[in-house]
């Protein structure tokens, strides 16, 4: 009995700081409708500030300072970046906030260095008391109290203060806000400050429990998303219940299945999204804006066709004129172009945002690797199997995904990818865990750099061309119809769900084939092929190339890969890349492809 109580209290303590982060994220989403990927970064910055202040002025001074500091950073984020994106499609918000993650990560690296930092214990709360003969750290009890106090405080704020009433109004009924004569920009600023301060508080309170590291941001944001989605976006009480649920499942799960702790949270999230798409206490969003811009795909045009032809010829003769390294690099570009083309197809033509494209890429990669290593398939059979396995995965995820849209769809795809990632990390017997699967090299006939390059060239060009044809043909027309106006499409007899499902399966196949090629080009596969940064890479490639430019994914993958290759030798390249992403999201929503076609059509107009 005492044991279970102790285990329960330990879980509750973990739930507290998770709740603080998730509550801030949820309030910000409720008021501004922005899904803030950089919220985990605010938590991390809170921890770093608390570490530094604590070493000079003591821990108890450090906690409020960290909360205010993180709040101020959140306010700056809102003023400099996010306010430009309130009316932008959700896709751009997600990607821009990820750009902020990269910038803040490098800023923290610059300010605090790469070493993990072990802060002090909380003075006065460094011991343990015995409850039913089990030692319980007093700091855990303090954390539980803080969690409950914040829940109560938020409750009081919503019920008793004008600000709280406005937040509720903004969350539940947009129009009412205007009717009350509120200036939304002021409300948004205060909301960001409070939400960010809660994240900073959560980070600061973790300092006595764990080391402060540069990877705290992505670890917590994935969990915070889970909590917010399960609780219902915009619901603070929901976030609290979900945080307790997840932390307790983890605390007791570790006793029974010590090796599968990572997957539990994401499975719960996926189930909740399927059964109650808007979370335990959430409501269907009102006036949600478009996931992507509704826009016609740009025409290739004369210059586009000439450029495409030149590109093909250039790629064809590259091994004859380029260095070995250029061939290696372009192999990567071709593979990523294929991966991005899949995402471009479902997102551009279908309007279906995915934050889990890595799921399909990784399924193809692990599929090919397992077929080759466990079943002894030849490279050719394993390569053929990769898109099939990814398509099966896409079909399953798609089955549930087609009922959702916008942020909720993005979150479900994220959950799908994270489930697979967790399996990749923890299902060691099958996937090798962090050790990955090694020794997956190409067949002898294509083992050389050049031969493998031509294999990738051939398969990527064929698959991308097939998708371009599909997007430009009848399939694409009907898919665009479901994106432009789903009720209209239904009224014309189009089975919207099935059409979207087919688009997801096609996207999955393309990414799966790319994943298969990737394994054989690198000789190995690791859980990073399934991780969040891979999904973000795919999104950034699509965005960079232009969501509505037919050649967008090719341009995007090329520019991104080359940019990453040249930048990654610099010390603070992530910040540069992040700034670049933010700039694209704010000022060039058409991407490079969009800019090019504008430029060409302007030049043509001037001449005529």
């Amino acid at each position: 009995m005492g044991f279970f109580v102790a285990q329960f209290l330990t879980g509750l303590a973990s739930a507290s700081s998770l709740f603080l982060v998730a509550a801030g994220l949820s309030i910000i989403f409720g008021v501004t409708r922005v899904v803030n990927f950089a919220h985990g970064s605010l938590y991390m910055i809170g921890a770093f500030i608390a570490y530094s202040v604590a070493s000079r002025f003591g821990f108890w001074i450090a906690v409020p300072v960290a909360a205010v500091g993180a709040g101020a950073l959140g306010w700056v984020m809102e003023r400099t970046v996010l306010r430009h994106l309130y009316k932008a499609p959700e896709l751009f918000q997600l990607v821009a906030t990820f750009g902020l993650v990269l910038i803040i990560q490098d800023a923290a690296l610059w300010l605090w260095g790469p070493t993990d930092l072990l802060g002090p214990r909380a003075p006065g709360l460094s011991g343990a008391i015995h409850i039913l003969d089990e030692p319980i750290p007093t700091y855990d009890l303090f954390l539980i109290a803080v969690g409950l106090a914040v829940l109560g405080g938020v409750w009081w704020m919503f019920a008793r203060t004008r600000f709280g009433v406005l937040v509720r109004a903004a969350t539940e009924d947009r129009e009412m806000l205007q009717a009350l004569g509120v200036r939304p920009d002021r409300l948004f600023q205060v909301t960001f400050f409070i939400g960010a301060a809660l994240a900073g508080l959560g980070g600061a309170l973790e300092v006595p429990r764990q080391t402060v590291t540069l990877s705290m941001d992505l670890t917590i944001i994935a969990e915070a998303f889970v909590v917010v989605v399960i609780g219902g976006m915009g619901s603070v009480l929901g976030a609290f219940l979900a945080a307790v649920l997840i932390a307790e499942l983890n605390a007791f799960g570790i006793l029974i299945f010590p090796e599968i702790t990572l997957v539990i949270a994401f499975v719960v999230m996926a189930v909740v999204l399927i059964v109650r798409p808007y979370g335990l206490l959430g409501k269907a969003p009102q006036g949600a804006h478009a996931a992507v811009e509704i826009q016609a795909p740009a025409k290739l045009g004369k210059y586009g066709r000439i450029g495409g032809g030149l590109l093909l010829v250039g790629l064809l003769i590259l091994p004859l004129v380029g260095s070995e390294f250029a061939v290696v690099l372009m192999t990567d570009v071709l593979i990523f172009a294929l991966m991005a083309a899949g995402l471009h197809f479902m997102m551009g033509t279908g309007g279906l945002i995915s934050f889990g494209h890595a799921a399909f890429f990784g399924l193809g990669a692990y599929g090919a690797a397992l077929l080759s290593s466990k079943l002894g398939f030849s490279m050719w059979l394993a390569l053929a199997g990769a898109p099939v396995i990814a398509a099966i995965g896409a079909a399953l995820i798609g089955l549930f995904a087609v009922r959702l849209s916008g942020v909720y769809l993005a979150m479900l795809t994220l959950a799908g990818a994270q489930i697979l990632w967790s399996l990749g990390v923890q299902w060691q017997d099958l996937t090798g865990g962090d050790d990955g699967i090694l020794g997956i090299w190409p067949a002898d006939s294509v083992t050389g750099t050049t031969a493998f390059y031509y294999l990738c060239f051939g398969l990527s060009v064929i698959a991308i061309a097939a998708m371009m044809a599909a997007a430009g043909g009848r399939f694409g027309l009907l898919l665009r119809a479901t994106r432009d106006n789903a009720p209209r499409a239904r009224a014309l007899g189009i089975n919207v769900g099935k059409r979207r499902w087919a688009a997801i399966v096609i996207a999955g196949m393309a990414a799966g084939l790319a994943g298969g090629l990737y394994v054989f080009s690198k000789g190995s596969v690791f859980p990073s092929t399934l991780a969040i940064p891979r999904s973000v890479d795919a999104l950034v490639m699509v965005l960079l190339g232009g969501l509505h430019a037919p050649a967008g994914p090719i341009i995007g993958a090329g520019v991104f890969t080359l940019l990453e290759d040249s930048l990654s030798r610099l010390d603070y390249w992530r910040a540069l890349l992040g700034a670049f992403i933010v700039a694209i999201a704010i000022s060039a929503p058409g991407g490079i492809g969009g800019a090019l076609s504008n430029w060409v059509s302007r030049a043509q107009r001037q001449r005529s």
Partner: protein
Amino acid sequence: MTVMLEARALRKSFGGLVAVDDVSFTLSRAERVALIGPNGAGKSTCFNLLSGEAAPDTGQIILDGTDISRLAPHVRQRAGLGRTFQIAAVFRSMTVSENVTTALIAAGRSPDNRRALLTEVGLAGLGARLVTDLAYGDIKRVEMAMALAARPKVLLLDEPTAGMAGPERTRIMETAAALADKNGTALLFTEHDMDAVFGFADRILVMDQGRLIADGTPDEIRENTEVKRVYLGDPDA
């Protein structure tokens, strides 16, 4: 006359509020029927029940002998039901011609029919224009062309003249009426404009507080005391 659409004792409530209460009526081939009533009378809900955007709590909808009460919107369409929306719903990323082509493909017909269809609704020559570049009246015509692409047995028009100026209203109603006559399509339309209602409807259904309070020819409705009572104070009455 052949009955094309029959509503039997439809009922739909949201929470405690009964939006549609025991509504029954029929629609015959080539018949033009208007559904009217004050705001909140349940017209929109009734429309959504017919088109499949919402499912009735009880009651049936029979389309040309088939029970479609529980079918999804796109399946009802295939059974012969077409509709337009109060705010014209078109595919905003497409040209006029692509919009109609999409509708034809979805209906399993050849895209070659698009010229004829555009001519029918009076949009000949505008095919290459982006639909968002058109005047609102023309967008409504595009939508009507799309709804007609499958040659539906029954066409539901949700406030076909909303958002349009005087002479344009008459023209779009005339277009709809002509097409209905030509193809034998039954028309059911809701409308606020009483000139359109009394000018074009063969029969008028009047709803109030979720119930059908009158069903008759324009002349009968004009004389109906209950209708007068409901519309008292309404400038259109």
